[in-house]
C-alpha cells in the first residue's frame, strides 16, 4: 500500500508554521499514533526552519516543497528548496555539546540537527540541479 500527498509554501516563519501544521494534520489520516506524530512534528519543524532561516536566509519568495509518502512501514518526508546548499554539501553532525551547569554558557541554539537525527530512522541529503533534497524516513512500528 502506498499513499502520498504534496504541499508547498513560501519561506517565511508564519507560512512555515501553517505548512508544518497542515502536513501533521494530513498525516493523521495515515493512522499514525499521536506519540509518533509528535516526534515527526518536532523533526519536520526543525528541517523546515533550517530551510527558511539558512537555505533561503529569510528570502521569503523562496518556495518550500514537502512530499509525504507511506511505503509499507516507513513514512518518507521529502523537502525540496532552491536556496543555498548545506555547508560542504553535507548533513551537519548535530552533536549536542556537553551541557554545562554554568548559566551563562548554556546553549541557546544548535539543537535542530540533533533533534532531526534523534527522531528520524534515516536522514539523507543531496544537492541536485540547484535544489536541496532532504529525505527524512520514519519507521512506523
Amino acid at each position, binding site marked *: 500500500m502506498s499513499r502520498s500527498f504534496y504541499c508547498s509554501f513560501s519561506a517565511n516563519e508564519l507560512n512555515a*508554521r501553517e505548512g508544518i501544521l497542515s502536513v501533521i494534520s494530513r498525516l493523521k489520516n495515515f493512522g499514525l499514533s499521536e506519540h509518533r506524530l509528535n516526534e515527526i512534528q518536532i523533526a519536520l*519543524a526543525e528541517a523546515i526552519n533550517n530551510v527558511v532561516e539558512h537555505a533561503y536566509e529569510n528570502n521569503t519568495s523562496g518556495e518550500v516543497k514537502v512530499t509525504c509518502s507511506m511505503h509499507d512501514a516507513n513514512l518518507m518526508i521529502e523537502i525540496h528548496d532552491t536556496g543555498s546548499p548545506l555547508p560542504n554539501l553535507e548533513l551537519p553532525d548535530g552533536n549536542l555539546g556537553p551541557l554545562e551547569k554554568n548559566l551563562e554558557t*548554556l546553549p541557546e541554539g544548535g539543537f*535542530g540537527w540533533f533533534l532531526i537525527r534523534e527522531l528520524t530512522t534515516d536522514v539523507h541529503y543531496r544537492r541536485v540541479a540547484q535544489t536541496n533534497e532532504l529525505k527524512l524516513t520514519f519507521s512506523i512500528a
Partner: protein
Amino acid sequence: MSLTSTAKDGIQVVTVDAERIDAAMAIQFKDDMRSTTDDGPARVILDLTKVNFVDSSGLGAIVAAMKQVGPNRKLDLASLSPMVGKVFRLTRMDTVFNIYDTVQDAIDAEQDDD
C-alpha cells in the same frame, strides 16, 4: 504581549498565552519575557499549560529567558505538554530546569538551593 503575569507571596507566575513557541514566536517571547520578568520576585514560574509545541528556537528563547532572570533569581517550568517535555528530555534541558507537573506543584515545592 504573549504573556500574562501574576505575583503573590514572592513568586511570579508567568503564563504563556500561545500554543506554540516556535521560530515565528521565539523573538517576541524572549522580548516579552525580558519586560515581564525585569525587576520582579526572586522566583519565576513559567506556566506552559497552553503551549503544546516548542521547537529549537523556542527552546533557545526559554534558555535565554532563564539567563535574563539572572543568577540570583530562579526560573522554573510547569505543566509541559508531552511534545514539549520530549524536546526538553532529548536535549537534556530537563536537567537544567526544575520542571513541575502543574503550577500548583511548583508553588508548593520546597525550594532548595542546588
